[in-house]
């Protein structure tokens, strides 16, 4: 029970840190504009308030099934393929992957498993939106999507029903992979 609580705390901290880092990067690059600085400062305070006070997480911590999370790398590879190999671009590549994935539950409407797949595949599709300068090939996408799948498993009870959660997890996976490559290459 304590291990679950620790995972929950670490996961919430990771989600907040990655979003704060994203805002800090904007803050650092816009030091010439006081309006943008004030705007970013205000956003940081409000998201901190949301993390601390808003009921965006379930009280009981649960894990996502591995059977569902394995679809994250499949979505990532498909999206990256559409994006880079077919030359459709990141937005169209992810949208095409998501649209195809959204029809998977129609294969068997009585299945309890299939309705969970579109979200996992769409989450992977965001990893595949990375451009060639960040993602150096299929191996990078595969590694980033495996990290994203792990984050998807541990964050089942977090940011419930909040749009952008899947994208944040993908961003966390891509950033972590990029950081590890930078440190150990």
């Amino acid at each position, binding site marked *: 029970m304590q291990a679950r609580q620790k995972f929950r705390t670490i996961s919430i901290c990771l989600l907040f840190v990655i979003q704060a880092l994203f805002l800090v990067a904007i803050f650092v690059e816009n030091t010439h504009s006081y309006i943008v600085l004030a705007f970013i400062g205000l956003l940081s305070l*409000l998201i901190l308030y949301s993390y601390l006070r808003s009921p965006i997480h379930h009280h009981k911590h649960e894990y996502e099934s591995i059977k569902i999370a394995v679809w994250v790398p499949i979505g990532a590879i498909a999206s990256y393929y559409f994006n880079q190999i077919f030359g459709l671009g990141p937005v169209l590549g992810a949208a095409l992957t998501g649209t195809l994935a*959204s029809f998977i539950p129609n294969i068997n409407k009585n299945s309890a498993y299939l309705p969970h797949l579109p979200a996992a595949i769409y989450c992977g599709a965001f990893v595949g939106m990375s451009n060639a300068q960040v993602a150096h090939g299929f191996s990078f996408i595969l590694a980033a999507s495996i990290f*994203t799948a792990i984050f998807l498993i541990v964050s089942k009870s977090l940011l419930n*029903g909040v749009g952008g959660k899947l*994208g944040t997890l993908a961003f966390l*996976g891509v950033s972590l992979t990029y950081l590890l490559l930078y440190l150990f290459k």
Partner: protein
Amino acid sequence: METFILYLVGVIASTATYYLNTTLNQGAVRSSALLTLVVAGFLHFFPKSVSPYLAQYIPPIFIGASFIGMVSKNQLSTYFGLALAGIIFTTILLNTSKFFTGYGGALGTSACIALLVVLSIPYFKSPRKMTVGFLQLRKTILKKPRKVSKRRVDLFK
């Protein structure tokens, strides 16, 4: 004018996705992906239909704002809140850091930040997520002033 159009795209994407998701029951993924497929597909095959600036920015703003519309109605149930989140998202995207350019998931992170900002304002929270105190306050604010009946006026005279 072009910046105004981009803000409009942000607002339309978030509210249209939410409408498709909750009212037409198409599910969050299909609502976001299908609408984006139509818009981004059109601009991919007819890029000269708008200016190069709009052709560059409309697809990422549309898909990012559509992530906002994937929100559950238990968290946010007002179209005004969704529109505000769309505006905040577009502002973040137009000032986004070059450091994270090309990182997959950056649009989703911006959308999540925009939504969390709106959710931090108690007025926009779904009634199911509100405390009794905030519900009473919202009721008081939204309550329309009652018409004073003629009979009662007469009594006061």
